């Protein structure tokens, strides 16, 4: 009997210790994230801003993503148009198809799908790059050369992602509308001018501005998560893959969460 009680108590003790370790790890990670964000904020507003590296990152994140965004944006508009057309015909509202597609693209699909594509391309790229720099001691080498790696590597990438993702979203929206026009013309004959008049005539300020504002947050999330995961990668080569992988997963998840919050906030102001 006594033995059974001892075993039970020992098992409860182990669970408490395990729980305590989990809480400690959680607090440690939270502290690390807060410290990381604090460092980024502080280093963003110094006179030693690494402007040349920032421009290079804008080029890498923005310009180098254009082919992928062009293709996905155009396909997004094309598919949305082809899929929606039968339903719109059924309701006798086929003339509203361009307007419906443009609202869907600009309000939701353009920002979210572009952000998810960028979470994959940009987030994993940053995570893998910084992760491999950590593993091969390049970040340490930067630090001992009196160069603050947060300022040079992280701040430049976070700001570049924050500013480039909204531009990529606008570009994807434009490509999506072009794709939609192409989709409309597969089974119809609508001039580009008429299509644009129908597509943009329905758009209002509230369709455009909140959608644009949330893309800055998408960009910041992608840059921050990619940098955090890469910067805090472990020491082995396996850590590079893990950093890239978790950067994509966490950034994609946070993009969805930010989108949900943005929709709720927009809804509060529009209803």
């Amino acid at each position, binding site marked *: 009997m006594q033995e059974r009680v001892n075993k039970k108590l020992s098992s409860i003790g182990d669970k408490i210790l395990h729980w305590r370790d989990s809480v400690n790890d959680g607090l440690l990670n939270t502290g690390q994230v807060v410290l990381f964000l604090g460092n980024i904020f502080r280093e963003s507003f110094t006179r030693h801003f690494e402007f040349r590296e920032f421009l290079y990152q804008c080029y890498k994140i923005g310009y180098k993503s254009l082919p992928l965004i062009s293709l996905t944006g155009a396909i997004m508009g094309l598919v949305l148009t082809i899929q929606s057309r039968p339903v719109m015909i059924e309701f006798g509202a086929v003339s509203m198809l361009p307007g419906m597609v443009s609202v869907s693209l600009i309000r939701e699909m353009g920002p979210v799908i572009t952000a998810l594509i960028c979470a994959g391309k940009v987030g994993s790229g940053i995570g893998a*790059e910084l992760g*491999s*720099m950590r593993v*091969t*001691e*390049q970040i*340490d*080498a*930067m*630090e*001992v*050369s*009196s*160069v*603050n790696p947060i300022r040079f590597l992280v701040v430049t990438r976070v700001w570049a992602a924050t500013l480039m993702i909204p531009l990529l979203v606008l570009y994807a929206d434009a490509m999506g509308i072009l794709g939609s026009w192409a989709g409309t013309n597969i089974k119809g004959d609508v001039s580009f001018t008429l299509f644009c008049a129908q597509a943009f005539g329905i758009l209002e300020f509230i369709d455009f501005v909140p959608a644009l504002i949330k893309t800055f947050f998408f960009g910041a999330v992608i840059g921050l998560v990619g940098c955090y995961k890469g910067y805090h990668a472990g020491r082995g080569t396996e850590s590079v893959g893990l950093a890239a992988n978790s950067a994509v997963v966490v950034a994609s998840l946070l993009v969805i969460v930010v989108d949900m919050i943005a929709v709720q906030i927009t809804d509060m102001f529009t209803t």
Partner: protein
Amino acid sequence: MSAKTKQEHNANAVIAIEHLSKAFGSLKVLNDLSLNLFPEENLVVLGKSGSGKSVLIKLIVGLLKADKGSIKVFDQDVTTLKRDELDVLRQKIGFLFQSAALYDSMSVRQNMAFPLERIRKDLDEKQRTEKIMEVLESVGLADAVDKMPSELSGGMRKRIGLARTIVVDPIIMLYDEPTTGLDPSTSDEISQLILDVQKKYKTASIIITHDIACARIVANRLLMIQDGTVYKEGILKDFETSDDKIIQSFFKSI
């Protein structure tokens, strides 16, 4: 040496470490370690893998935080310096990493220019280029100036890593296993280069190694770490003639 003379001698030290301890969780890596590095000397730190040699120089340069003890570099205690003060101090210290740690995305020229642009702001573009070429010539790799790190062999990477470190004229050099992973001939070349750097740039250096051939070429003084503390300190002859089994096994293992 009398106590007073010894005190005066120690006061000249460019690095003075006292009662240094460092642990990672329950693993004690350094335990009450003390050492001095004097101007223009090459101090070779020997020890088995995992004995805390690399941790020691990472503590000196502030990449790791000490648990206990003081690390004075030019009379400034690294353990208490703020980030900005540490950055200023680091400008006087060169660090050659085991992997050379060249920036993969930059050419050799950009690798060299990176610290130079930020530390030697007094130099203009032309002077920077001249300085880069001068240092590259001193390591025998002026031809590699426009190559990418991926195009370089292990020995070349170490030389470029060394060149990138000395381009900003450090007063102290810290070498983390400079000959590891190199063939004997290239190892000798790197060891000779360390000696040349000491003579040409008047640097004081700590060389972390377990390569006795390298130690024989570069050492003015040696120090062995065992169980996290200084096990023996002296000149090469003291080590080679020692009857101690641990030291003997180390020197006979070559």
